[in-house]
């Protein structure tokens, strides 16, 4: 295949040169590899490979200045800006916000050789206000004033900074460009005999235009462009720049403009493929590749580089040769998490306004991070600390506590992570040490990652010792993130054969027979108007600075150039609209269509083949029956039965597989704990009265003791938890109110003259029952919170901290208990009634009631079982007959549990599964 580079080299080798003094300047590094390859292919005889450099490198060389990288530049800029201000220094954080935008503007201004003084003078000039329609009597608004004075600030700082950088012989790219134009003449003089070849350029900035022309006219340089008549001979934006050079440069009055060819509108197949979202898009590319016979000379272009990891997992097996020009973002590597967590540890400390203590979640996250685990997981210290964190229910854990748990040898290694105390140098240092201490535990690309982090923290250390502007961990993180954003890991593959996976910019000057481009969407290709700049659009136009229009034209050229020599072009775009309005197909696709290119359109839709969710089922085996028998012997508890009627599968999990609830840090007192505490306190209060009558006076004493009793109980059930702060404080107050309200209502009863006698508290009862057809012992057991006698009526009372409604205890047909969760509470209190009657061999001579006292709706008082039908008057009497009827249902339930024909089956209607 004839490519632009092969044509260019063909021309160059015609000269029979040795190329020792030839310098090829290219728009991208990638193109250099292909250019060298062409030389290898086409050279005959021994030659030097010409020196191949990028335009940036070339400019650096001409300017004799060193290019400063962006982070260092920012620090330098800060230094210069703050050098003679006193007092009102802005922090590096806020500074870097606007400064990076300002630097971009400076860069543009310089690259385009704009008279900066002129421009900035205009920008801060009061005359601008006139354009804004401010009538004479009106003063300019505060915002305008601020705007102008900010412009003045830019003006001053630009001049200061420029002078400073020149004195240091370094600068940002634009500065290098401007300086290079000043030095180009002497460069030409010094480099007699040098042959410069510019290959494959398109959009040049003013400085480049100047340098190119100077070099071309001096005879030192030649240039090869890659143009197609389609956009050269029309007003298409793709040709904006090349047309201009061809027409305006005096050099081209006499010299030929090479090359302008006609490929675009020649035979090629173009496929436009619409896909919903990225995965569909890239997976479709996978199947396109699968269908390709040869993958040689094929480029897969990711206009959105963040799709790399997806793409890497979507190539068919047949791709055996692959080259990837894009790097894998270091920020995507899992190791980032480790440092992120250390940052979080301190940033959240700050957020919660704490010192010397850490948020338990951050600590937990660090301790469960895979890297941490790998590094320290084996040490007993680590395990001990982790256990401590999980079991201690503390929201904030102090450094001292951590240290106390780290005593072993290994501890040294990571104890320092907790000793940073918001100090920036220490933070950096700890990270470096952590990395150094562990470098031998990694290998392969993980070691490479670690090494990159090592570099990164060394860089931070240097920056910080050099400038000392990083005052807080937050600032540090900002700088860290800026550094990490540009870090990429590169791939090793087949550089020149096989499938080429690349970003849009790397395609410059390259040609492929088959081109597949992903994300041909507005906002990506072209990237659209997202530029941040302080120079208004109109002013840019006036001064000849590029705007988004030029940027769009550049994309346009890249796009059309890329497909011009290709035979097969697959253009995929994402149709999914997100919140920000993506999902619009690129104008380039519309252009192709309007221009009458033959396009085959396809829409990808992935079938909605959701596998029906199947019910979980477990069939009973003899092994399970045996286990159930053992359970029966020790007794079915009310919660076991409730669990079974609500969802047999839940019962199976809980009682046969013994799957328990997860043990986690109770950041705030859990619901269960609240319940337990209130139960305990009430037991403590009432236990001494078993068999006795309680008086209002007694209750008063209880009221008095309630706070201390609660505190004691909380200490016991909620280890070391802090009751003074946060939600816990709230919950503690709630518990207080619950107990106090309960006691108050008891007191009210007693004041009315009622007689209250306590019969039992937290009474455990177990009873054996016979079930027809089951010839083994079966027990039921339960623990009744309180049994008392109120004016002669025996009451079985269950305390609940959750909400209970009267309807949950209203049941006339007990078989409803088996229908699910709704009557769980009735099931429970009835079972208590049964157990009580068994224990006392009660013949139900007196009145018996069974029910619940709910703290959450304490105004309702004691809620009793109600057996009446429909709207009839409440009937709360628990009678022998009712208990018997109820027990029939319980027995039926137990029979079912043992029925081998009925499997444990998930109840999908149960809301809690």
């Amino acid at each position: 295949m004839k490519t632009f580079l092969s044509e260019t080299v063909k021309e160059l080798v015609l000269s029979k040169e040795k190329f020792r003094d030839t310098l090829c300047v290219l728009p991208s590094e990638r193109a250099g590899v292909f250019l060298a390859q062409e030389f290898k292919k086409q050279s005959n005889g021994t030659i030097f490979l010409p020196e191949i450099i990028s335009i940036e490198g070339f400019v650096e060389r001409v300017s004799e200045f060193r290019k400063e990288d962006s982070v260092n530049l920012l620090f330098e800029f800060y230094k210069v800006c703050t050098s003679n201000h006193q007092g009102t220094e802005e922090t590096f954080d806020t500074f870097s916000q606007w400064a990076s935008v300002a630097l971009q503007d400076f860069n543009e201004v310089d690259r385009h050789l704009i008279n900066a003084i002129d421009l900035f003078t205009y920008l801060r000039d009061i005359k601008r206000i006139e354009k804004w329609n401010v009538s004479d009597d009106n003063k300019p608004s505060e915002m305008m004033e601020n705007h102008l004075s900010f412009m003045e600030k830019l003006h001053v700082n630009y001049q200061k900074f420029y002078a400073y950088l020149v004195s240091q012989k370094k600068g940002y790219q634009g500065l290098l460009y401007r300086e290079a134009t000043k030095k180009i003449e002497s460069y030409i003089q010094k480099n007699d005999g040098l042959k410069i070849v510019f290959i494959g350029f398109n959009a040049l900035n003013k400085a480049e235009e100047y340098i190119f022309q100077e070099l071309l006219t001096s005879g030192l340089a030649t240039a090869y462009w890659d143009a197609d008549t389609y956009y050269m001979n029309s007003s298409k934006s793709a040709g904006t720049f090349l047309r201009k050079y061809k027409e305006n440069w005096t050099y081209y009055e006499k010299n030929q403009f090479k090359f302008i060819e006609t490929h675009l509108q020649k035979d090629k197949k173009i496929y436009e493929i619409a896909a919903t979202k990225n995965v569909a898009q890239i997976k479709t590319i996978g199947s396109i590749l699968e269908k390709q016979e040869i993958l040689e000379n094929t480029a897969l272009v990711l206009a959105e580089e963040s799709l790399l990891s997806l793409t890497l997992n979507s190539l068919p097996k047949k791709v055996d040769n692959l080259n990837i020009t894009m790097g894998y973002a270091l920020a995507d590597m899992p190791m980032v998490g480790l440092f992120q967590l250390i940052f979080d540890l301190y940033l959240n400390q700050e957020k919660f306004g704490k010192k010397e203590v850490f948020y338990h979640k951050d600590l937990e996250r660090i301790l469960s991070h895979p890297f941490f685990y790998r590094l320290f997981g084996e040490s007993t210290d680590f395990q001990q600390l982790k256990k401590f964190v999980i079991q201690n229910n503390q929201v904030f854990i102090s450094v001292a506590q951590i240290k106390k748990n780290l005593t072993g040898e290994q501890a040294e290694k990571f104890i320092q992570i907790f000793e940073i105390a918001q100090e920036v140098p220490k933070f950096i240092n700890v990270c470096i040490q952590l990395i150094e201490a562990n470098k031998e535990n990694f290998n392969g690309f993980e070691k490479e990652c670690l090494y990159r982090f090592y570099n990164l923290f060394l860089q931070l250390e240097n920056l910080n010792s050099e400038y000392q502007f990083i005052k807080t961990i937050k600032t540090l993180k900002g700088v860290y993130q800026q550094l990490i954003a540009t870090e990429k890991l590169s791939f090793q593959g087949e550089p020149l054969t096989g499938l080429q996976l690349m970003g849009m910019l790397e395609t410059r000057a390259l040609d492929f027979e088959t081109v597949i481009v992903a994300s041909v969407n507005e906002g990506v290709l072209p990237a659209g108007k997202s530029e941040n700049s302080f120079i208004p659009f109109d002013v840019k136009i006036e001064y000849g600075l590029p705007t988004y229009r030029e940027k769009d034209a550049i994309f346009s050229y890249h796009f059309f150039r890329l497909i011009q020599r290709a035979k097969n072009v697959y253009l995929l775009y994402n149709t999914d609209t997100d919140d920000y309005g993506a999902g619009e197909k690129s104008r380039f696709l519309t252009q192709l269509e309007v221009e009458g290119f033959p396009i085959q359109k396809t829409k990808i839709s992935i079938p909605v083949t959701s596998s029906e969710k199947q019910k979980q089922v477990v069939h009973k085996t003899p092994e399970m029956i045996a286990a159930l028998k053992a359970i029966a012997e020790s007794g079915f508890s009310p919660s076991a039965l409730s669990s079974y009627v609500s969802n047999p599968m839940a019962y199976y999990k809980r009682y046969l597989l013994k799957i328990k609830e997860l043990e986690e840090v109770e950041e705030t007192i859990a619901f269960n704990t609240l319940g337990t505490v209130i139960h305990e306190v009430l037991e403590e209060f009432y236990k001494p009265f078993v068999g006795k009558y309680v008086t209002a006076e007694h209750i008063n004493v209880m009221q008095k003791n309630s706070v201390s009793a609660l505190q004691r109980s909380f200490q016991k059930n909620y280890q070391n938890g802090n009751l003074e702060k946060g939600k816990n404080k709230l919950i503690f107050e709630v518990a207080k109110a619950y107990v106090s309200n309960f006691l108050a209502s008891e007191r009210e009863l007693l004041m009315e003259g009622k007689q209250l006698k306590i019969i039992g508290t937290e009474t455990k009862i177990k009873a054996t029952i016979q079930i027809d057809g089951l010839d083994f012992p079966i027990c039921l057991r339960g623990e009744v919170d309180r049994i008392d006698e109120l004016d002669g009526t025996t009451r079985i009372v269950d305390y609940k901290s959750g909400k209970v409604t009267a309807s949950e205890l209203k049941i006339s047909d007990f078989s409803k208990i088996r229908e699910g969760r709704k009557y769980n509470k009735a099931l429970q209190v009835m079972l208590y009634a049964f157990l009580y009657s068994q224990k006392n061999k009660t013949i139900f001579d007196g009145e018996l009631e069974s029910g619940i006292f709910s703290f959450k709706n304490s105004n309702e008082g004691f809620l009793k079982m109600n057996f009446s039908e429909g709207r009839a008057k409440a009937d709360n009497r628990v009678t022998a007959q009712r208990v018997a009827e109820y027990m029939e249902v319980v027995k039926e339930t137990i029979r079912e549990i043992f029925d081998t024909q009925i499997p444990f089956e998930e109840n999908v209607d149960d809301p809690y599964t």
Partner: protein
Amino acid sequence: MNQNSSFRVYNASAGSGKTFSLVKEYLKKVLETTSRFQFQKILAITFTNKAAAEMKDRVLQNLKLFSEGFDNDMSVLLQEELSLDKKTLQERSKTILEAILQNYAAFNITTIDSFTHKIIRNFAYDLGLPLNFEVEMDGTRLLSEAVDILISKIGENKELTQILIDYAIGKIEDDKSWDIAYDLNTSAKLLLNEEDFLQLQRLDGKSLKDFRTLERKLKKKQREIASHFSHLGEKGSQIIDGLDVDDKDFVYGDLPKFFNKLKTFSKVEIGKLYSNQRLVKNMEAGVLYSASKSDQIKQCIDAVSEPLQTLYSEIEYYYNKEYPRYVLSQFVLKNLIPLAVLKNIQEELQTIKNQNNICLNSEFNQLISEKIKDEPAPFIYERIGEKFQNYFIDEMQDTSGLQWQNLIPLIKNALSQEKGSLLLVGDAKQAIYRWRGGKSEQFIALYQQEKREHNNPFLVEKNIENLDTNYRSYSEIVQFNNLFFTHACQFFENPEYKELYQIGNHQKENSRKGGYVQLNFIPKKELDADEKKRAFAEHVLASVKGLPEARPKSDVCVLVRSKKEGVVISDVLTQNGISIISSETLLVQNDPKVQFVIQLLSYIQNPLDTNAKFLTLSFLYQHLKILDDEHRFYQTFLEKKGEAFYRHLSSIGVHFNCQSFLKMPFYESVEELMRSFGLFEESNAFVTCFLDFVLEFQRNKVANIAAFLDYWETKKENLSITAVENDNAVRIMTIHKSKGLEFPIVIFPCDVQVSKEQNPTIWYDALEEDLFDRFETSLVTCSEKLSLTGDLGAAMYKKRNQEVVLDNINLLYVALTRAVEELYVITDYKIDAKGNENTAWFSGMFISYLRTLSGENSWSEGRLEYVFGEKIVVAKDQKTELATSLEKSVGIISSSWENHGISIVSNSSKNWGTKKEEAIEYGLLVHEMLSKIQYKEEATAVVQQYILQGLVKKEAGESILHQLEKVLSHPELKPYFQKGKKIVCERALLNEEGQKLIPDRLVFEGNQVAILDYKTGKIEKSYRAQVTMYADLLEKMGYEVKKKLLIYLGEKIEIDRF
């Protein structure tokens, strides 16, 4: 004022071809001039991204068509209205199309949100916002984080602690949940709503303490009032008790009861004090006892009649004077405390936003209104880099107050220019977004003719046009809706709303005649709530089943008010074998494979999470069709912990390495996981959508399992796949979602109480200064009882009530106007014992409408079905036409990149580690630096550069430099590093075979060359061969090789020369 400018308002009822007209006007604007760049001066604002995309597409497609010389309805109209001939139209279209495509960024058809976002971005610095802020759409998520932080601070700030705890305890006393987070979250949402925010600003100056003081004061006032009422009651009782008559001797015992009620005043429900009308009437008439009482009793009572009457009117007087205050205080108190801490929540929110560089989408309009709007338009235009002359605004009725206020200055400026224009298009009947800030009253005012500021904020005359033809529905449906909604206007009290429905429902029919409307009433008096829902669903099923075979199910859309309502209908339809598409069925979280991945990730993250482990096993049991019995399977795997578990998976054919899983970037690891478990065997939209979600997560966040699982929890409720259109499934959709869409058949099961609203609140912004401590406004519950606070309250309630009625009737309007061919309305047979309907409900409105009809569809009691027109006959093969559209499915290809012969380069770290390796590294480094040094002077700069880049530790700089110096200053080598010579470093030589050879350093002097190559270690003669090869090549090229030097870089520099 400019004569050439125009301001037009289009009133566009449902189906009136609104988009067509909008596109037409847009095209007119660009085609009327010869300037090809006219389009850059137009800003068209739509409500959704989708609408913007559609409008863009329609404009481009039309221009393309015209430029190719084709005609359509549009071109005919355009030629006529612009009086252009076909050829000119064609030419202009061509140049404009080209101009748009080549300057696409200036093709401004966008949403109001995008536009405001753009303004904010451009003013970010001026507003003190972070320049690179990210927009957060989901403000509620941040708010709940802010609330959590606030709660975590209980115990730190005394004032705050007290207020929150008192609030919680107060809730307990009312038997409500003590969990204040819910209440705080609810009120925090006010911060996101522009109308509420404006009110909140009026409370800016109030501190927590002020709120507390007010609370105490109001409570005290309440107690005072209550106790005075009790006292009065007491007084009354005393009078009566002193008599020797029974309470019943008064008429029905009313008066004594009344006094007793007063005694327990604080327990009497609001508004129930005078609930006994009989008493009121009797007291007015001075009747204390019934005529049948004995004389003695009459005498007895007469004796105290006067003091009783006086007391009664004293009570009445006191009631009139103080009761409104009592009620209002009560209302204010109810919402006061959550309001009090709002500012604290806002502070926490601000901190969160600052920390994460976030701006909330919802605050943009606020910011513009406060800080930017009043700047002169040219200044704003300059800053945003665009200047518009023509504005098109679609869906004007859903535009919020601030959105419109913010646009007015820009538009004013545009209209003051030559040929400025504004076109507003909307339909107040389709305003259903009040809860999102949409203010339909604004549009109602704008389409009214009278001249007032809010009718026309501009100096340009306004033209109002009604788009009066319905192009959507068949004639029966148009007719039904016209008549029904005209009838419905009587249910409004607000005259503007009434008028809206009066003028808006004279739609003309289009050419499609026929169509079908069916009204069904479901008798369901006896049923409980769940059963009622089910009865509706059953009827939907019956309607679907009643459709002819040939009718594709995808023609049918069932409209519901809320997602929840849709669930029952989905269940019933699916249980009966009808496939459906609803937001629920499209939810990714319901897919078993996705659930499996989540569970497995949870287990990997926390190996103690046995429940998650069980769920993954339960999926695998089915997915892999395990033959072993379930119990044994579960037990075996549950027993295996950690690595052993993953290893044991191979016994069921799954090869999953958890260690390597954790080393990969997150997205890759998830895909690897899914691959290992065979989840890609068939393509599945849920699975790919889930992967998209994972990818998106990795792109935006630092990705790890824990963070992912948290993120998933917050997003899973809303993550759904896009419905595939071509599907034989009935759609179930909320009315809100259906807006702007149409369906051949619409089924609408509904019965709604038109004035009902969930937990309505309103700002009472005329609080009495003295009593309310100069609080200007407060949030109160909006119920009819608000009228008890006085005329103002009554007016407020009425206004709000009417708004709610409008919103609900609008919903009904939107629902009924979606149908093209057939419309089925299913509603409640709700009539009282007397056979009267209740027109406060949709059902009653329908019945009331049917009553007005004569003939066969006239209402008759007991009849449950009413039918208009005839069902449309569907051609048999109508369906196949759709299926041929180009659609194909992809199988999911997934494989690891390591299969393709690539690896990640790890050169730089290869020699980083052991001492020995570091020595090598050091050697290589020196070697590398030497290759970068042309002349001696550059050494320091090169080393410096390495340090800056973090490649060399600062401390090591000295020693490296020293090492370099050894070479550079070596007496024998020195000359090769001096200026003036032609140096070639690390350049390749190509031999005849095209092979590359790279000598480290060539130093030329004229035609003579010296070759320098660096080595480490001891002198090895074998290295010489390589250098000799270089020499051969150079000589072949015609250079004379003067020197060949091998330089050994060690403690001491050794040189092998030959």
